[in-house]
Each structure stands twice: as structure tokens, then as C-alpha cells.
């Protein structure tokens, strides 16, 4: 049994809860769905639903997270495209000016709505890469697709985003 070193759900909540929440939030644009997803992931970790292989913790965790997310979409027949409630309330670095805060919020709202317009596969690849910070290998493992496909999804996702976003930065 290789489940002996499997992290407990409390470990996962403590170390990865915020990341999972951000992943779900960027994929759905909805705080309630994001919170639901975190709980669902913790429940799945608790029940040991996915076989755990030591050494591929990220792949294991994100596979659980992704499956939970996809099951949720299938169950609810919900297309995750709801708009942001009132901008983000996240960390914006060290005390930016009010103008900078406003601009950043507006920008992140734009980016968020552009993300929601991407086809799911591209959105997922881009979010796992740029929001969660996984390597291509980890993304391939989590999503069960070849690394070459990961690479092309990330690139095409970014290209589509670039076309949707208008900036001078």
C-alpha cells in the first residue's frame, strides 16, 4: 500500500486550500462555486478516492481537483461563466496608490471575463500554468493529456486572451 504517506485532508486544506480556491475561482468566476470545490476536494482526499503515488503529489492533488470540478459541472449542467461580483479583493503588492488599485481591479476583471470566454481546455491549462504555477509535466499528469498538447493549449489560450484583451499596460 502506498497510501501510508498520503497527506491528510487537514494538510491539504492548510497547504493547498488557498491555491485550490484560486484555481476554482479563476475557472468559474464565482466565490460560492470555488468554496464548494475546495470542500469537495477535501472530502475526496479524506476518502482517499484517488490512488496516491508518493512523489507526484501535485499531479495527484490537481487530478482530484480537476475531477471534482468537472463532476460538478456535469452534475449542475452549469457553464461556469457568471460574472465577477465586485472586482477582486486580493493582495496587490505593497501599498499601491488608490488609482493603481482601481486600475488593477479593472484589469483583473477584464482578464477574468476573458478567461471565462476561453474554451474549457485552454482555460484550464492557462490557469494551472499561470495561476497555480504547475510545470507542464504536472499539468499533463493532472489532466491526463500529453505534454505536447499541454504546451499547445497554453499557447493558444494565451493567444486568444491577448486578442480579447485591450491594453496599453
Amino acid at each position, binding site marked *: 500500500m502506498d497510501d501510508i504517506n498520503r497527506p491528510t*485532508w*487537514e494538510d491539504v*486544506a*492548510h497547504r493547498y*486550500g*488557498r491555491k485550490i*480556491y*484560486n484555481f476554482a*475561482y*479563476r475557472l468559474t468566476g464565482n*466565490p460560492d462555486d*470555488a*468554496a464548494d470545490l*475546495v*470542500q469537495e476536494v*477535501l*472530502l475526496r482526499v*479524506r476518502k482517499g478516492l484517488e490512488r496516491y503515488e508518493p512523489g507526484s503529489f501535485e499531479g495527484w492533488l490537481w487530478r482530484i481537483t480537476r475531477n471534482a470540478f468537472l463532476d460538478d459541472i456535469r452534475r449542475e449542467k452549469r457553464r461556469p461563466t457568471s460574472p465577477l461580483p465586485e472586482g*477582486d*479583493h*486580493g*493582495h*496587490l503588492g505593497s501599498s499601491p496608490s488608490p488609482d493603481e488599485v482601481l486600475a*488593477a481591479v479593472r*484589469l*483583473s476583471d477584464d*482578464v*477574468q471575463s476573458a478567461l471565462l470566454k476561453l474554451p474549457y481546455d485552454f482555460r484550464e491549462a*492557462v490557469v494551472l*500554468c*499561470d*495561476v497555480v504555477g504547475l*510545470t*507542464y509535466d504536472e499539468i499533463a499528469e493532472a489532466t491526463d493529456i500529453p505534454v505536447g498538447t499541454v*504546451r*499547445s493549449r*497554453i*499557447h*493558444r489560450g*494565451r*493567444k486568444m*486572451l*491577448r486578442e480579447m*484583451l485591450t*491594453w496599453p*499596460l
Partner: protein
Amino acid sequence: MAAVTPDPDRFAVLSAYLDGELDDGELDEVIALLSEDPEAVAEFRRIRDTKRVLRALPVVEPPGWLLDVEHYGDRLSAYLDGELPTEEVTSIVHHLTTCRVCREELHDLDRSRIAVRALPGLDVPRFVAPPEPRPAASPEPERRRHRLRPRPIAAATIGLVAVLALLSILSPGASDPTITMSDLEARHIARVSIEPGFSVLPASVEAVDP
């Protein structure tokens, strides 16, 4: 140069380059591409800006009850046993209204607790040792534990009783060594472990039934 239909993924290597995901051969390829092809340079800049913007997305804070509040872990057992101070009970009850995971954990703990408490009390068989005169037995396991003095004969008796208790649990389903929760509950003398009036879950919360 002859006109070639551009491959839509021709520049995918640029994203991989930005992400530090290229091997040495591909690295040389990208450097050559960027030094020869102005279109590649323009594409590279666009992709780089997009990546920057994505990386700059603010971290969204989850609601406090989800992560900032500690989950209750081993305090859930103490909660079931009524061993927590009132303030902590209040905060656990509040936490249970939102946290599905602690709710499910509590439910499982309660089932184990019921199973153990349901074990039948056994009489010491007379042929092993004549019952010693002892103070009136208390039904509470907590107190009984302190009263035991492991003199040799008593230790042997306890050992035998334990074996008998184990056999009495295992033998009825002789072919199947697994003890199921329903076996235990069926054989149980007192099926409910929770004192009347002590509610495991707040009234507003449904018990989880896996």
C-alpha cells in the same frame, strides 16, 4: 522566400520558452527564430505581456470559515464526549454549519464511538476465578480503569475475558472475519451512545449519511 501557410502552433515554442519548459535543442531553435523573424518577435512580446497579466492576477482570499479557521480534528471526539469548554462548543457548532468535511468526520467518529460503546459487558466466567469481593461496580468505564490493580490472577482473568469477548464478536459470522458496523449494532445492548438531550449536530445541520 516562398509563401507557406503558417502553422497555427508554429509559435507554441515561444510560450514554452517563457515558461522555462524547453530542452537545449529547442532553446537554440527559439533563439534562431527570434533573431531571424520579426513576426516571431512581435508574437513573443504579445505572449509575454499576456503571461505577465495572468501572473499579476491578485490572489483571491477564500472565506474565513473555509481555511483561516482551523478545522477541528481531534477536538471533534472531545466534542462528542462533551469534554470541551462551552466557548469551544459554540465555535464548533458554528463551524459545523458551514464545513462539510468536519461534519462528515464527526459522523464517522460518532459511528465508531457508538460501536465501541455498544460492546456487551461480559461476566467473568466462574470456573476461571471466583468473583472477588469488590466495591460496587460503576458503569462508567473511565472510573473502572483507575480501580484496576493488575495482580497476576486479575491480569490473567482480564486477558481471558478479553479473548472471550473477542471470540464472541468474531464467532457468529465465523466464515467472514470482517466485523461490520451493522454486526456490532445488531449485537449491541444499548444502541445509542449519546446521552438524551445531547445533540451531536446543531438542529440546522443535517447528518451526513455516506
